[in-house]
């Protein structure tokens, strides 16, 4: 293998080598190489296959616009990254890369048979066929298409790497570290304002990286860039972020950056994140994102070895790599001459410069002539030869005539430069069309940003530097800083970016039967765009979607303007009238992991645990997720399954007692002179007459009359209520209360305080509940006379202040001990010691559910679903009938909320008591009717009731209360279950047990 690395050319150190493999082949490059430069140094141009036709493809560019050179990079079995651009991936020792979308090998790819069928696979062909027979789409065609599509292979193992995210604020964010960005950052930085400068490349310098003829401030452009970057890096108010792409411009000057931290390292420190997401909020954004060179659209323009002229200069001037030995140039603009001259100086033979322009003039053209390079003006490249590498170009006068075959092993193309207006456009700025140059430029801005340099259409170096210094100063002044403008940057350059064209080159017009690629990766040709327009696609968005032009992983960086130019020419309309496709974030693809950052696993969502959580863990409880809470579901003992554990817990509570952690319930303290009046408005119930020390079950409605929440409320004083809410409803209820208090009833003098996490709540339920807590409680008379059911007292337990509620969600005598959260565990343990002595158990949420269902108590969210009224639930008694207002009072009166036929809460008993209905099962009156059946209700709760010795269920049933005793049916997949409609109360119907 002959090396294409040239001695004494470029900026890499020839002594620092790095080994790597490509498709298993061991190769050598240099530190500082990209994978692309290292491959070219080894003479390798063929690196991939195209998406549709599997055509052999080489390296087109030297940057993030690369459409062809996508490879998989494998660090190890779990660290496999598909679709990595070889032009961006920095080489490290031991890098392993594989080509994609080919089988069995890159050089011999069976998929290339598609290329033979290309006439059939025209744009949008799949919309026109694969329809017969109908089932074949799913079973035959689609699987084939899916297998053929896709590029790389998704990782198959969980990612061992981690990712980080940062928020940052600055006065000036400069995006792009080329001449413009560095000059603007310098001007902004000297004011002392906070400046962040980011660039997607490994080092700063931008286009100075490949240009050879520029001097700034008396030194070579590249050297000036390095010195300036070093100076900026030394300033306290400046942060420089290389390898960092500004990928999205969001509202109010928030720019998303993604920093690649370890992707270039051979052995990354495992402590380092692989990538880091930056949310930068900048007062001013200076966009200096440069321009992207376009390729020429001509026949067979996709052979490996055909690349952008600027890319060849990158490889030569920075990496010291020659892209070939016999190089042709095809251009319509001046800058490609720089590539010819640089290569010529490095001893590479320039076969010819083919310039579409009839009479190009200027210093660079003169220099090329003077160097003796053959210059064919007014000519075009009609086609190219070669299979896995370009071997020749056929050149002819563009007006027509004889063609001449010129052997080449590389062909450099340049159709001009497209300003990178992506970020400006994402900022919602309006683009303006430059008719003379046929390019889109930043127009009216929507946010505080300034575009400078090539992305603003500024071509000369001197003007760019002047514009940049002014922008830096302007940004500083815009944020109230002082701009001294002490910097001046004299420059001189031999470079010229003049000229350019877009659309098809002569000989490759859409009507010609040639493959002239516009979008390489998606295999879109000029012909395809012609066909799309012919088929009625008049908007560029339609052309894009029909042909997929610009929808590949490069997002059309090289292809969009060409596609638009071709469509506009066929339609005979100027480009802005055909439209420009939207620039959508991200600028380049962003790793999911970087966006996710730390939000994985336990940090995906906070986990809330009660103060007694550790007790349940020690007891071997099984937990369930309720919102963010982990709640003890049941406490299995040795050998018990869930059913056995719940049966035992249920039995024990009613026979002796049980302890339940009720700390997750929401708790809101409602305080103030108008507290009772406020409660009257927020709940359906009357509150003014509730005595101090008494409790009431409250129902809260939404304004539309449907049940929103419920809970027991205790009155601690005339002006103080202790309100409880459902576990899931806590935040919602407080928000709802605050909303009304602040905006509808601001005249009420009330304070609301969330105390959900301040109180630990230990429910002790069962006939022995009082015996259990009595030894521990001080200052409260626990007798039935002094403390009846539904009352609240303040005292101490174990010397800890407590709010002790006598209440019951089980139908048993019950207490709920509220203690400050920090004492929760110690009080629990003390109560637990007493409880065990009384034969009591700890029980979880499942038993809680069963016990309350035995009593017909509802659970909001289970018996209700946002469409249920208090009347539906048989809770009319909880509505203060004399009240003139409460939230929901009017909604409740709407016609369909008072109509007959509403679903009402009932009990269901299966005819066979052993059958436990499935929750959600549907009820019908006539099981023999055909499908679709008329469903008249559904099971909302259903359990095996150990205490009733049978199954029980709650249901919502149309006019259910008038169907007591009726037999109804639940058709299941395997059988139909008969049930009897009953009262929803299955146990202790008279409700005597709560009293003792």
């Amino acid at each position, binding site marked *: 293998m002959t090396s294409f690395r040239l001695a004494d050319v470029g900026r890499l150190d020839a002594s620092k080598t790095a080994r790597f493999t490509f498709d298993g082949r061991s190769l050598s490059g240099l530190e500082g190489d990209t994978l692309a430069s290292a491959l070219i140094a080894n003479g390798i141009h063929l690196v991939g296959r195209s998406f549709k036709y599997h055509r052999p493809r080489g390296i087109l560019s030297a940057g993030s616009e690369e459409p062809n050179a996508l490879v998989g990079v494998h660090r190890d079995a779990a660290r496999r990254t598909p679709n990595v651009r070889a032009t961006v991936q920095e080489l490290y020792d031991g890098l392993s890369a594989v080509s994609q979308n080919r089988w069995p090998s890159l050089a011999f790819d069976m998929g290339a048979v598609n290329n033979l069928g290309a006439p059939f696979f025209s744009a949008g062909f799949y919309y026109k066929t694969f329809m017969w027979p109908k089932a074949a789409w799913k079973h035959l065609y689609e699987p084939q298409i899916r297998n053929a599509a896709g590029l790389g292979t998704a990782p198959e193992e969980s990612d061992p790497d981690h990712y980080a995210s940062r928020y940052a604020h600055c006065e000036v964010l400069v995006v792009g570290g080329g001449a413009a960005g560095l000059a603007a950052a310098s001007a902004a930085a000297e004011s002392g304002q906070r400046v962040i400068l980011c660039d997607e490349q490994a080092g700063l310098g931008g286009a100075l990286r490949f240009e050879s003829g520029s001097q700034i401030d008396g030194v070579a452009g590249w050297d000036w860039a390095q010195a300036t970057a070093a100076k900026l890096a030394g300033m306290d108010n400046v942060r420089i972020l290389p390898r960092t792409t500004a990928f999205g411009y969001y509202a109010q000057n*928030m720019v998303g950056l993604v920093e690649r931290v370890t992707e270039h390292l051979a052995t990354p420190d495992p402590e380092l994140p692989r990538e880091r997401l930056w949310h930068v909020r900048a007062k001013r954004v200076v966009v200096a994102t440069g321009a992207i060179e376009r390729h020429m659209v001509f026949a067979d323009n996709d052979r490996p070895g055909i690349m952008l002229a600027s890319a060849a200069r990158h490889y030569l001037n920075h990496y010291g790599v020659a892209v070939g030995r016999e190089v042709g140039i095809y251009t319509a603009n001046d800058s490609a001459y720089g590539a010819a001259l640089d290569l010529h100086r490095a001893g590479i033979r320039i076969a010819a410069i083919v310039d579409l322009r009839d009479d190009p003039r200027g210093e660079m053209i003169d220099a090329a002539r003077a160097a003796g390079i053959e210059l064919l003006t007014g000519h075009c490249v009609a086609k190219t030869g070669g299979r896995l590498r370009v071997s020749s170009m056929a050149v002819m006068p563009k007006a027509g005539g004889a063609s001449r075959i010129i052997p080449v092993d590389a062909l450099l193309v340049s159709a001009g430069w497209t300003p990178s207006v992506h970020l400006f456009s994402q900022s919602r700025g309006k683009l303006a069309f430059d008719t003379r140059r046929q390019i889109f430029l930043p127009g009216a801005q929507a946010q505080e940003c300034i575009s400078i340099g090539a992305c603003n259409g500024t071509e000369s170096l001197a003007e760019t530097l002047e514009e940049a210094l002014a922008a830096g100063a302007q940004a500083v002044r815009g944020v109230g800083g002082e701009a001294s403008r002490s910097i001046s940057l004299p420059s001189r350059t031999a470079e010229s970016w003049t000229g350019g064209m877009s659309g098809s080159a002569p000989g490759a017009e859409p009507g010609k039967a040639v493959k002239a690629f516009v979008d390489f990766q998606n295999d879109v040709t000029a012909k395809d765009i012609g066909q799309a327009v012919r088929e009625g696609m008049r908007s560029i968005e339609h052309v894009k979607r029909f042909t997929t032009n610009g929808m590949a992983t490069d997002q059309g960086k090289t292809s969009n303007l060409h596609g638009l130019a071709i469509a506009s020419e066929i339609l005979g309309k100027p480009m802005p009238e055909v439209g420009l496709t939207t620039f959508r974030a991200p600028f380049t693809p962003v790793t999911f992991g970087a966006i996710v950052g730390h939000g994985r696993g336990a940090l995906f969502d906070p986990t809330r645990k009660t103060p007694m959580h550790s007790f349940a863990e020690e007891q071997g409880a099984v937990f369930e997720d309720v919102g963010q809470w982990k709640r003890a579901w049941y406490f299995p003992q040795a050998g018990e399954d869930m059913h056995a554990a719940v049966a035992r817990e249920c039995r024990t509570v009613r026979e002796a007692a049980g302890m339940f952690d009720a700390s997750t319930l929401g708790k809101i303290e409602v305080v103030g002179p108008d507290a009772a009046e406020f409660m009257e408005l927020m709940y359906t119930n009357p509150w003014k007459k509730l005595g101090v020390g008494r409790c009431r079950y409250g129902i809260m409605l939404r304004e539309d009359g449907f049940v929103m929440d419920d809970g027991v409320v205790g009155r601690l004083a005339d002006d103080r209520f202790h309100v409880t809410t459902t576990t899931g409803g806590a935040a919602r209820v407080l928000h709802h209360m605050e*909303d009304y208090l602040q905006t509808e009833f601001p005249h009420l003098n009330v304070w609301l305080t969330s105390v959900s996490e301040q109180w630990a709540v230990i429910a002790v339920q069962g006939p022995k509940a009082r015996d259990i807590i009595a030894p521990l409680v001080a200052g409260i008379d626990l007798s039935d006379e002094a403390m009846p059911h539904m009352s609240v007292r303040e005292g101490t337990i174990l010397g800890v202040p407590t709010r002790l509620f006598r209440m019951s969600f089980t139908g048993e005598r019950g207490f709920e001990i509220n203690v400050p959260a920090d004492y929760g565990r110690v009080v629990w343990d003390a109560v637990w010691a007493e409880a065990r002595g009384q034969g009591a158990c700890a029980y979880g949420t499942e038993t809680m559910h069963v016990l309350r269902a035995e009593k017909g108590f509802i659970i909001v969210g289970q018996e209700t679903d946002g469409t249920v009224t208090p009347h539906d639930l048989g809770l009319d008694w909880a509505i203060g009938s004399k009240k003139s207002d409460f939230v929901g009072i009017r909604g409740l009166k*709407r016609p369909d909320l008072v109509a007959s036929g509403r679903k009402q809460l009932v009990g269901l008993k299966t005819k066979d008591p052993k059958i436990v209905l499935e929750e959600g099962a549907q009820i019908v009156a006539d099981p023999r009717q055909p499908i679709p059946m008329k469903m008249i209700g559904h099971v909302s709760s259903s359990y095996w009731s150990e205490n009733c010795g049978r199954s029980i269920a709650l249901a919502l049933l149309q006019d259910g209360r008038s169907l007591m005793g009726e037999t109804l049916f639940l058709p299941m997949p395997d059988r139909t279950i008969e049930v009897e409609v009953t009262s929803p109360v299955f146990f202790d119907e008279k409700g005597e047990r709560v009293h003792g």
Partner: protein
Amino acid sequence: MLLIRCPYCQEERPELEFRHAGEAHVVRPHNIADISDEEFEAFFFHRANPKGITHERWRHVHGCGRFFNAVRDTVSDRFVTTYKAGEPKPALEEHKA
């Protein structure tokens, strides 16, 4: 993520601290129990949903907890101003300058 100025805290804070609370200046009738079905429908369900300037409510839920109003352009999402609950709609001309 929007930046929102809380008129109580007098600070511009990120959207994550706030909760949107729908259209502003929709007043709950004092005699709500007596209004017609149509009036209730208009009060509770109908919304202006304007394309352009809107008056809306926010709550600084992870800050001071207060509800306040904002004037925002729903096309650009740009805030014109924010003001305290209960204050009248601000005259817009002065903010356009």
